[in-house]
């Protein structure tokens, strides 16, 4: 039951990515190409996702605890805006701007068995493991 629930959540996420066009790097790059041929769609994807998560989260948090968990994450202040945050975000931005893929769409695109995507995801996993060793504990 639990397995199915998380699988379903992942599937809904994947469907959302595909329907929104985020699994097409061309569409993402067109959003990032603000000074060129600009496709504003990603702005609406983000807006829809943020609004939906934001609203549903308020409903979810009315419960004392999650269905299968000890507690909800603390809503207290969540860490400093430091060099690691900014540097990491910048590195991510470079990679995202290069390929038009971020982790979610990259993984969803594994369904295509397309070499550029396979290579991207493999390298992404290597990068993640490296970062965890370099930056230490869980961020």
């Amino acid at each position, binding site marked *: 039951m639990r397995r199915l629930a998380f699988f379903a959540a992942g599937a809904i996420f994947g469907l959302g990515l595909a329907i*929104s066009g985020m699994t097409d790097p061309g569409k993402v790059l067109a959003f990032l*190409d603000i000074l060129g041929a600009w496709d504003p769609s990603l702005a609406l994807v983000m*807006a829809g*996702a943020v609004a939906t998560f934001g609203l549903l989260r308020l409903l979810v948090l009315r419960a004392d605890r999650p269905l299968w968990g000890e507690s909800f994450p603390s809503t207290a202040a969540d860490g400093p805006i430091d060099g690691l945050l900014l540097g990491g975000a910048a590195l991510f931005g470079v990679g995202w701007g290069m390929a038009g893929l971020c982790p979610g769409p990259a993984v969803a695109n594994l369904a*295509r068995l397309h070499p550029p995507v396979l290579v991207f995801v493999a390298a992404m996993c290597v990068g993640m493991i490296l970062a965890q060793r*370099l930056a230490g504990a869980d961020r």
Partner: protein
Amino acid sequence: MQIVEFTPWSALVGGVLIGAATALVLGLNGRIAGISGVVARIFRGTPGDRAWRIDFTLGLIAGGALAFALLPETARFRLEAGLVWMTAAGLLVGLGTRIGGGCTSGHGVCGIGRGSRRSLVATLTFMAVAIAVVWVVRHLLGGGA
């Protein structure tokens, strides 16, 4: 600047699904479903923490596969980049999302969605950098992806 291919309705529907999926995970086990964290912690997580991430990730791939199969318009994939470029990009995304503690879903959707100023700063940063990179590649160098 010219506006092209704006698809507001599919963008909104897709966004709502993404938001709903992340809220669902929050309700199920109290976790933030930022994909960089979901994937990364498969590699280092404690066994109890790993299982749900694997199931979610399998679902993510299945959701993609389902959409590509049933909704042909979602199957579009435009990218002209060599394997070296993709390797470099993947490495940077992997490094950056974990050093920075999140990605478009982690910081952008969940972080901003719960009012985190830190996530807003992170999101604005990676957006600005990505926009700059695309400008350099497309308009300065006139090539790349």
